[in-house]
């Protein structure tokens, strides 16, 4: 078990939050996006660095659930990104290559 998985298990054992099962995708469904297909604006610099990362804070802090832990590996899907920049700040390894989407693409807030 990696450190992140151990922490995840501890979180579940402790009862976690009663809302740990909340479905973020359902929330994102209400948002408007213009996805720049094939040109994700966030990239992982070195996937090996993510595998060795003890904390995987991106999987906790991303408000859109773009960063997921799938059988020990980090999966990044940027389609639902809210462009807050959190993953760039919380990555201790500076392994997140974060750029703004091309002009006009990405999230389009109706209310903001």
């Amino acid at each position, binding site marked *: 078990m990696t450190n992140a998985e151990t*922490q*995840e298990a501890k*979180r579940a054992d402790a009862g*976690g*939050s*009663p*809302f*740990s099962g*909340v479905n*973020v995708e359902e*929330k*994102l469904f*209400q*948002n408007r996006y*213009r996805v720049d297909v094939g040109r994700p604006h966030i990239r992982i610099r070195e996937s090996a660095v993510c595998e060795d990362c003890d*904390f995987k*804070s991106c999987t*906790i*802090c991303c*408000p*859109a*659930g773009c960063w997921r832990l799938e059988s020990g590996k980090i999966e990044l899907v940027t389609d639902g990104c*809210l*462009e*807050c*920049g*959190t993953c*760039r*700040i*919380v990555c201790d390894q500076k392994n997140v290559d*974060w*750029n*703004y*989407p*091309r*002009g*006009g693409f*990405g*999230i*389009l*807030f*109706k*209310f*903001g």
Partner: protein
Amino acid sequence: MTEELKAAGSVSAKLPAERFDVIVVGAGPAGNAAAYTLAKSGLSVLQLERGEYPGSKNVQGAILYSNALEKIIPDFRDSAPLERHIVEQRFWLLDERSSLTSANYRSEEFNKPPYNRYTIIRARFDKWFSQKVQEAGALLICETTVTGLLRDNAGRVIGVSTERENGDIYADVVILADGVNSLVPSRAGLRPEIRTCDMALAVKEVLFLPKETIEQRFNISGSEGSVTEIAGGITHGMLGTAFIYTNKDSLAIGIGCILEGMKKQRVTPSELLEGLKNHPMVKPLIAGSEMKEYSAHMIPEGGYKTLPELYGDGWVIVGDSAGFVNAVHREGSNLAMTTGRIAAETIAALKAAGKPMSAANLAAYKESLDASFVMADMKKYQDMPDLLTNHPQYLGSYPSFISGALHDFLTVDGKSKAEKQHQIFQGLRQQRSLWGMLGDAYKFWRTFK
């Protein structure tokens, strides 16, 4: 202005080849305040915005503080899309699951125009503000992401590069108003990266309800509105606050915490928001509403000590990009507008005097800020982030003590009042020693005074 420039809003359009007096990066409150002030002073202004329209990338609670905008557009109330004027402020302590302790302040004085604070919907407000900027004569180009700064051999900033074809544009000075996730100045080495202990992440939902339902539930009518600011166990002991703002026919509900806390406690932002929405004191207020948008935004809360250099040869930095946020008073957009305006006034004065946009001359921007409420407030609370980070009891054990004490005191169970008081005091002593409490009170007073 040529037709070509007017059509520049579409991605394929060419960028203007001319040189501008000023380039403003970003069309949020800081960028708009700056661009408006500059255009009104007769300078040639190019404003670049990466969104489809100004506001499409911007997120705030949102409360508009009239004073900052009045200084830029005195008659803004005649045309700005305002939701409700605030007549009541509620300060809530919510524990994690069940109780509420509150202090409300409501006054008929807040019902007398000109109103001091309004709720706004940023996507609509920013569009309006931008319209004013364009009417003042600034050229706005949307859907254009600035990728870097251009410098001459001496290192002076002389323009910006964009992602567009032949995307370099030149100006005498660049105003960096690119917001909290401030990539351009960070990459140019003009500001250090913000640490997770100095940055909050807030998540928000916009919940629609009939106007009458909102008015009934929040005890307001007409264009009256209320603000609810929430602290306590609802943030799982992390440094943070939550809010509920009333718009005309929607509620903005959100919660934000310092990222360092989220990292350590491994609580996700959406769990925090669900915890808030499902709290028994909140749930009835939002029951039956329709969620129409979910958003997130970072807030730079490090305060005065984390402010970067504010100017240099050919550039100034304003608003969230610089970290102008008063976390204690939940102010940011007013500081953005004020720093944007003051930067613009500095630049306009230099231009009028025929002086170059050198660091030595732009130092007048910081001098003006130092003489304004902006720096006075930033300095006043400069020790607050450290105090709260190093002493989590202010937002952890004290709020939970207050709700516990009130619970015990208000439960009639056959115990004598003297016994109850003793129990409550002992309960407090168990959490913190008497000297500890006195020290906490002193430190808190020192930081606030």
